[in-house]
Every structure is written in C-alpha cells, then in structure tokens.
C-alpha cells in the first residue's frame, strides 16, 4: 500500500511538471466536445440535486403537507417556528453530539488501533479484518445487533448487570444515556475506516525519518509528536471531514436503537425530518429543517477542512 502511494505521488509530481511545460499547447489541442463526456453527470446532478435543492428552499416558505396539490405561501414563518420550536434545541444538540462525538472517538481510537496494528505482531491481519467488518454491514442491521445488547428485557448487558445482583437498567429509554449509546454504536461501526486510513498514512511515512530521530536519541513519544503526527495530518483531514459529514447526518442507527425516543431525547435532524414528513404531514417545515441541516453540515465540515488543511501546509 505504501509503495503504491509513494509511486503515485511521484507520478503526480512529474505530471505537473510536464503540465506546466505544455499547458498552453495542450488546452488548445483538446477539442471542446470532449467536455461532453461529463454532460450525463451534469445532467443527473441538475435533475436530482440542484433542482430539488432550489425547490427545497422554495418549499420551506410554504405550508405544504406533502400530499395535496395546493399549498399556501407562509413567508418566513417556518423559520420563525424553528427558532421557537421547543424540541429544536435538543435535536440540534444531539446532531452535534452524533457528528462531533463520533468524529472524536473514531479518530482517537482509530489512531490507537492503527498504531498498535502497524507493529509486527502475529495475527494482526485477522484483527484488522475483524475491526473493519462492521463497516460493510448495514448500519441498520448493526443497530439491531446492538439493540440485542442494550435491550431491557433480555439484553445481553442486563444479563451481566444481573449477575452482580443489580436490577435491570433500561439504557435505551434513558434520555441522558441513549444519545451516547448511539454515538458509541456509530463509532464502533466506522472505526474500521478511520483505522485503515491511518494505517495507510503510517505506512507512507519513510522509515529514514524514524532512524534519524533515533540517532538523535528521541524517545518514542517524541518520535510520535515530531515525526508521526505531523506527517499523518493529511489522513487526519480526510478522516475528520468524512466522519463529520457521516455523523451529522446519522439516521439508520438511531432508527434501529431508539427511533429517536423517548420523545425527542435521541432525535437528530435527519430523524426529525422523517417524522415531520411521514408521521406529521408537515413537509414545508421538514424542508426548513433540511436547509438548517445543510447549513450546519457545510459550515462545520468546511471550517474543519480549512483549519486542518492549513495545519498540513505549516509543517
């Protein structure tokens, strides 16, 4: 893996050199009709992303119920309603916990796993496979599996608690705990991706750097903070941005474990939108929340991206 990355980096470099040399000549040579090759993609994006996106902004100014052919314009009243919604605070807070919490845990644990499983220990390949396995299982099914674990009546965790003579605990109905249980399950599910990206990053760090650091008498900790960490920054960027986008729009795991309940206690913006649309025929307001979600995800992930990219350039 490391070799592939190293070789390709070289390729990019050579390519850019050649590129600047022949830039002018090339761009004149390329016939314009070649751009038709991305026309199908552009068309799909216009129909299924850009057009509905604009429509969504429009719908957020209506009281459409999701079914009837007619609706009224209500101005910004959906947005005012959002500001005064007694549940919006908890839902936005949950969405942030799912997004930021999962990102933190996934990166810390994923990095620790990668550091351990990068050492030459017998059987590390099998352990990597096991840690990565949940990534490919549907998050909904993963949610059900953990439901068997945390469930009240015959949950596996309560069996253990019972062994110690303690009464059963209804963890999933506990509004303080279930948000963190969902964050934990999401972390567990995608830990494998973080680990694999960090492993690839670790393997692309040239061995000479460590040898040089050792000659200077660097301790393992110093080696980590002065060699490994700065060179791992690109992997950190990818992991953080991917995990943020994934966590902030979390849906399946919540549905499987608590269905957002009790009340709004573990609801995220995604599950609340579904509830509004499906159960409450409140499509105009659902569209408003959709726009809020888009703004949240864009602001948070672009900020994180720009901050981390700058860190990469510095070293």
């Amino acid at each position, binding site marked *: 893996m490391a070799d592939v990355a190293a070789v390709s980096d070289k390729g990019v470099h050579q*390519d850019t050199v050649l*590129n600047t040399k022949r830039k002018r000549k090339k761009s004149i040579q390329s016939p314009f009709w070649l751009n038709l*090759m991305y026309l199908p993609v*552009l068309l799909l994006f216009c129909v*299924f992303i850009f057009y509905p996106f604009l429509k969504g902004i429009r719908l957020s100014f209506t009281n459409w119920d999701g079914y009837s052919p007619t609706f009224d314009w209500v101005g910004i009243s959906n947005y005012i309603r959002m500001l005064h919604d007694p549940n919006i605070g908890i839902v936005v807070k949950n969405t942030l916990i799912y997004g930021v919490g999962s990102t933190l845990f996934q990166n810390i644990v994923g990095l620790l796993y990668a550091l351990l499983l990068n050492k030459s220990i017998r059987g590390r390949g099998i352990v990597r496979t096991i840690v990565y396995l949940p990534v490919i299982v549907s998050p909904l099914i993963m949610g059900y599996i953990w439901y068997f674990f945390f469930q009240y009546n*015959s949950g596996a965790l309560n069996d*253990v608690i019972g062994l110690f003579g303690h009464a059963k605990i209804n963890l999933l109905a506990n509004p303080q705990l279930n948000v963190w249980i969902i964050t934990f399950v999401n972390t567990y599910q995608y830990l494998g991706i973080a680990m694999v*990206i960090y492993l690839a990053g670790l393997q692309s760090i040239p061995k000479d750097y460590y040898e040089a650091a050792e000659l200077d008498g660097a301790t393992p900790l110093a080696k980590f903070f002065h060699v490994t960490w700065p060179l791992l920054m690109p992997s950190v960027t990818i992991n953080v941005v991917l995990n943020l986008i994934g966590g902030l729009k979390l849906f399946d795991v919540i549905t499987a474990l608590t269905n957002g309940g009790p009340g709004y206690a573990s609801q995220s913006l995604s599950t609340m939108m579904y509830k509004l649309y499906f159960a409450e025929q409140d499509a105009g307001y659902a569209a408003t929340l959709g726009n809020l979600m888009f703004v949240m995800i864009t602001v948070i992930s672009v900020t994180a991206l720009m901050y981390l990219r700058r860190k990469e350039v510095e070293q």
Partner: protein
Amino acid sequence: MNNRAMKKNALFLLMIVIAVVHILPFYLLLTTSFKPESDTSSKWLWPHALYFGNFTNAWKHAHLGTAIVNNVIITGIAVTLVVFLGCLASYPLARFKTRLNKFMYTVFVATMIVPPLTILVPLYKFVAGMGGMNTYWAIILLHVTFNLPMAIFLFTGFISTIPKELDEAAMIDGTSRIGLFFRIIMPLLKPITATVIILTGVTIWNDYQFSLFFLQSSDSQTITVALSSFFSQYVNNIGWVAAGSFMGALPIIALYLFLQKYFISGLSSGAVKG
C-alpha cells in the same frame, strides 16, 4: 532482551482483547438467532442445539427472497452506471484543466457535502410526480447521482497520475480520442475501479434512507426496508429479528471475507491518494 519479549507479549494480548471485544456483537447475533423462543437463557451462552426455525420464519415473513433479488438488481445496475459515467466524466476533468473543467470538478466534488436528506422533501415530490415511486429506475438514478461525486473524486485523482505521453503516443499512432479513452485509459483504471465498485457497492447495498422513502411496496423492497418493517412488527420475537438480520448481512459479509484484501487496500489507497 527479556523486557522486549514481555512488551511484545503484552501488545499481543492487547490485540487479542480488541479482537474479542469487536467480535462479541456478532457472536451475540449468532447465539440469538439459533435459539428458539422458549429458550430464555442468556445470549452469552451458546445454544444447546442449533435451532433453524428462526431462519425459515424470518425468511418467509420478511420476504427476504424478493428483497435480496431487488438488492442485487439495484446495486448491480447502479454500480455499473457509477463506474461508467464516473470514469467517462473524469477523463476530461483530469486531462484538460481548463478553467471550465476546474470549475466543474469543484462543483462535482463539492456536492459530496449535500446530505441527500436535506433535499428529500422536494425529491420525493419530484420522483412521485414522474411516476418513479417503487420503480427500479428512480432509485437507481438516485443512487447513481449521490455516489458519483466520490467516484469522480477517485477517478480524477487516479487519471492525473497516468503519464500524458501515453495519450500522445497513442494519438500519433492514429487512435482517436474516444478510442484512446476506451482502449488505453480504461484498462489502466482497474485498481481504482475496484475501489469505486467496493465503496459505492457497499453504500448502495446497505442504503436505508432512500429505499425507505422510494421503495415502499413489498415487491420493490430492499433488504434494509424489509428488515425494518419486520423488526417493528416482531420486535418481541428477538430470535426472528436476529435471524433476519443475520441473513440480511450474510451476502455482504461473505463477499467481504472473500475480497477483503481489495476492500482494505482499495479504501486506503483511494483515500490517501485523494
């Protein structure tokens, strides 16, 4: 020396602990699915005798047969389209970095940030208006659209690393631009194509949000939708739900164990390169 060996053993032990912790949920899934309803022993205990009733019942009541066929059709066609349209689009974007193409690339990749859910309401209205509810074509086009940004990101990155001399040599030999793309460039894309197939394949196979919304009839349901309605119906019959979940996850777990080398190396090479 002895100190070093001890340290190595400690790390090995730590690794075993990690493996056990991560395998536990799957173990619990297995024990739960092989126990009859009458068996109320702890999920931690392996069943006395393997009971297969949960599997036959779940298969029948969750309509898993139909669901798996739907999953295969939708995922197969959608992934093929993502790969084809994705590499086709990436060629001019990677090779001819005109101002227009740079702009287009940014737009294509930036759409990754748009969560499908935020445009769900208008999308639903639009698809329903076109008669696309419970149809293969609508859900396939949706999956294709939302998986293309990642595919274009990966393909464009990869094509940029292929030397341009190759194009020029082929052109001098009299190949047309299109012939060049299909005969020279496409065969070189194999490793990144594997990555794209795996990433988008897993995403589409496991999708729940879109399928829940756009595939509501029992004939068109996919595995996740079938299981979720099965779950809400038989939530108290945990053995059935476990067996259903197990069967729903089995095809992709089997595929993963079979192709795990590509799964992991594909993800890491794609991510690091990008």
